[in-house]
């Protein structure tokens, strides 16, 4: 049969189903397949808070959104062109997120009376049978039935067979977008290679889905999205937590410091622990501690011994680590504290994203306790940003807080990965012997950066004691002298402030150097701001976008940049945190746009907000 192939520029697909339906896997496979074709993309998985919420219910819906395009994309898209709904609940939860005229691919078996009831549809009402979906193109398939049919020769149980349902959908989509399926076949081989019947059944169902599209006359058109015009080079798909892990390994290799991670599991940071635990061949030591306090203090112990000490957590864990961060500030020791933020306070919204902890990172400790703060703006950016955090930490002898969030952690994008030899070197020197005229080590004698020497146990002649009590400058002896305390508080602050001399100046990401509105962001709002500003610039509005990696200290030229615009807008996924600091530091009457719903800001809403300010 000869079919039409339509070329599209930009597609958003959302895979939605029960958390047991394998939608994350389906989404990831389709993503990798897309990436391998050189199409630009951005993803956003949306997990339920419960591991296994009751089957078929609204809270049990798990989603994976993928946007792919022949243009560059910076967000996973505000609304979907295609929704895959494995059951009634998945449809209900996502209906508002589909564009008018969009396609809905439904598994009809997920719309029986039981599923309809669980999804809270009124008795006797089935959205597939009334005209409530008349604005959409609905593609109905009985995925369950066809999966079982495809596997009728297989001896496995019905439950086992049904587990392959997602492969049917994946196969169908591969057909719909004119793909080959090699990457998924390889994936299945790696995953199930040793369990032949499971491997065979998955492949069978995957092909059945593909063939269903190919042979059913109902579907006249397939679609194609061309390669994106991206910078030449080699790419791979990268997720935020993975990029943090790789950035840490790279920094460890380039600095020569063995990597030690002390961590206590917490969503959405645990994947960094999982990832790093796999790379022992790089000498990585991962220590799953008994709590967050032991996680950070063990990392302090390791850093004291000359390792690259790292601890990873999310907001509640940050709160527990606060006292130990103060110790690291007093010890003036390198340490990386990674906070993958989530909705708060307390347990809050564990699986939802929020820029919740900037103020905690800035101020959330006893005493005058300044620490540099570095933030990542996209999944792949985590690599460079955490690498930079390590550089600052070891060269300036200070703990550094690194902020990511749930949206960045689980999102994926193409990454033009670097060559190891092209990564900037991370120079550092342990102190190995006494200097000229030194009788004994002066642990708080400082260099031009105000950094003190890093003298690790095992070095003869440099035995010394450090601790959390106030230290006399230079000698490191305990000191309660009033003048000394004031001096040390000022030095610790100045040491952090001075880092501004050793980081890149702030750049305008997009837009004119002077203009009407500067949209200033940090962290995961990058894509939304980037897209909104690009759209407004295309319409001729004098709007610019600057995005901060260094949130403490700010780049030296940030104040000058801010002065070049009539107005400053600071969109944040919180109740206004960066804005407080910017107002405080630069006395500027910045405006906030704050969304605190556990979900990202969309481009569309931001365009509206900026337009109102013009």
């Amino acid at each position: 049969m000869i079919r039409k192939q339509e070329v599209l520029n930009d597609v958003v697909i959302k895979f939605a189903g029960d958390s047991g339906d394998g939608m994350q896997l389906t989404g990831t496979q389709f993503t990798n397949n897309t990436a391998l074709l050189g199409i630009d993309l951005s993803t956003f998985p949306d997990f339920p808070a419960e591991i296994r919420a009751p089957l078929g219910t609204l809270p049990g819906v798990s989603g994976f959104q993928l946007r792919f395009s022949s243009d560059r994309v910076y967000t996973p898209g505000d609304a979907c062109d295609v929704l895959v709904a494995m059951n009634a609940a998945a449809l209900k939860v996502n209906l508002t997120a589909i564009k008018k005229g969009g396609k809905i691919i439904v598994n009809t078996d997920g719309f029986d009376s039981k599923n309809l009831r669980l999804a809270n549809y009124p008795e006797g009402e089935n959205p597939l049978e009334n005209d409530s979906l008349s604005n959409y193109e609905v593609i109905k398939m009985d995925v369950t039935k066809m999966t079982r049919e495809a596997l009728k020769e297989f001896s496995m149980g019905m439950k086992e067979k049904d587990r392959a349902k997602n492969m049917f959908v994946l196969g169908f989509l591969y057909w719909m977008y004119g793909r080959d399926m090699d990457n998924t076949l390889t994936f299945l081989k790696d995953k199930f290679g040793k369990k032949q019947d499971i491997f065979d059944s998955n492949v069978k169902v995957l092909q059945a889905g593909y063939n269903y599209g190919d042979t059913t006359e109902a579907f006249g058109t397939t679609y194609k999205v061309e390669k994106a015009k991206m910078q030449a080079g080699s790419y791979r798909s990268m997720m935020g937590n993975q990029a943090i892990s790789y950035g840490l390994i790279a920094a460890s290799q380039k600095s020569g410091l063995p990597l030690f991670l002390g961590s206590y599991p917490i969503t959405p940071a645990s994947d960094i622990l999982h990832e790093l635990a796999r790379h022992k061949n790089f000498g990585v030591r991962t220590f799953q501690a008994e709590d967050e306090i032991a996680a950070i203090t063990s990392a302090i112990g390791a850093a004291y011994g000359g390792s690259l000490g790292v601890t990873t957590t999310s907001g509640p864990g940050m709160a527990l680590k606060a006292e130990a961060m103060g110790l690291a500030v007093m010890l003036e020791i390198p340490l990386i504290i990674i906070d993958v933020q989530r909705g708060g306070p307390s347990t809050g919204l564990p699986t939802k994203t929020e820029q919740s902890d900037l103020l905690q990172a800035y101020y959330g400790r006893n005493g005058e306790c300044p620490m540099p703060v570095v933030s990542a703006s996209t999944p792949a950016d985590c690599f460079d940003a955490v690498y930079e955090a390590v550089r600052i930490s070891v060269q300036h002898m200070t703990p550094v807080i690194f902020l990511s969030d749930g949206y960045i952690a689980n999102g994926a994008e193409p990454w033009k990965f670097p060559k190891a030899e092209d990564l900037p070197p991370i120079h550092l020197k342990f102190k190995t012997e006494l200097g000229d005229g030194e009788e004994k080590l002066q642990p708080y004698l400082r260099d031009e950066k105000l950094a003190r020497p890093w003298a690790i146990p095992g070095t003869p002649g440099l035995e010394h004691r450090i601790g959390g009590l106030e230290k006399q400058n230079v000698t490191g002896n305990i000191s309660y002298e009033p003048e000394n305390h004031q001096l040390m508080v000022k030095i610790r602050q100045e040491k952090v402030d001075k880092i501004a001399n050793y980081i890149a100046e702030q750049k305008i990401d997009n837009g004119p150097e002077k203009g009407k509105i500067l949209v200033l962001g940090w962290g995961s709002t990058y894509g939304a701001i980037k897209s909104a500003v690009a759209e407004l610039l295309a319409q001729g509005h004098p709007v610019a976008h600057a995005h901060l990696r260094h949130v403490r200290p700010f780049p030296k030229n940030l104040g000058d940049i801010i002065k070049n615009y009539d107005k400053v807008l600071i969109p944040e996924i919180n109740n206004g945190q960066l804005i407080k600091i910017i107002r405080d530091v630069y006395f500027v009457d910045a405006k906030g746009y704050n969304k605190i719903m556990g979900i990202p800001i969309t481009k569309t809403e931001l365009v509206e907000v900026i337009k109102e300010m013009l």
Partner: protein
Amino acid sequence: MAETLTAPLTAKDFATDQEVRWCPGCGDYSILAQVQKVMPTLGIPRENIVIISGIGCSSRFPYYMNTYGMHSIHGRATAVASGLKASRPELSVWIVTGDGDSLSIGGNHTIHLLRRNFDVNILLFNNQIYGLTKGQYSPTSEENKVTKSTPFGSIDHPFNPLALAMGADATFVARTMDRDPKHLQAMLLRTNQHKGASFLEIYQNCNIFNDGAFETFTEKSSKAQETLFLEQGKPLRFGAANDKGLKLDGFNPKVINLDEGHSADDLWIHDEKDIYKAQILTRIFDDPKMEGHLPRPFGVFYEADRPCYEEVMALQIEDAKARKAADLDKLLRGNEVWTIA
């Protein structure tokens, strides 16, 4: 300094120029002196010794020892030491902690360190009081204790630290006292010798806030009657004339008088390797004021061999390295790559 490298080290080489700031008469002085005496005999280069403490009077200890040291935060010395030992197995890591530090705020880290069996030495200075904060009761203070925070007497039931350590699967469990320098030195040596987490409880007199807490065990007049010094392979004997002993009657320890028709052969023979007997021994924790109480044992209660966390961790790493080269480019590249021309 060159001469300290050639000449054997002495206690003096382990002292620092910092003024020791404990109250005059505090038991901590004796412990410091014994540690300084023992350290040079261990054959460990000074630069490889690290002393990590938490917060409390006792935790000032590192400042007075000319080794590497860290005075960390309240309760966390055990966790700091775990990270250090995990990453630098070759170092000799000592933890100095108080009863509040290690059993109250840091109780969690203590039990987890013990079960993981890092090869470190824990010196628990038990004075049954919070010294540094000026005299509140601690998790080892006896019931009914009147302190600033318990004017009507404490209603907390105390920990039995050694039983707790046994419960956490410690591989070395011992008790000594500040007032018996010889025994303290012997126990420090044993503590150091043991490969694995060593838990040494040291009864320490706080003459300011809890004076005489252990005097029944430390004073000449009562010591022989009230204490029982454990020696490997030897019967459990005590008493002014060494005329009493402990016998196991089923699972119950009983005091017997050797002059009343019992011979030394009837006595419980101490075996540090016997986990069941060690559990019973640590449970001998009677209040000396109680009628018919048993004497308080001192010495090594238990010692066992179990792989140390840091060793197994290092083995896993060696194994991983042998199986897969550390190729950063390969890692960054992964196995699903596309190229844009």
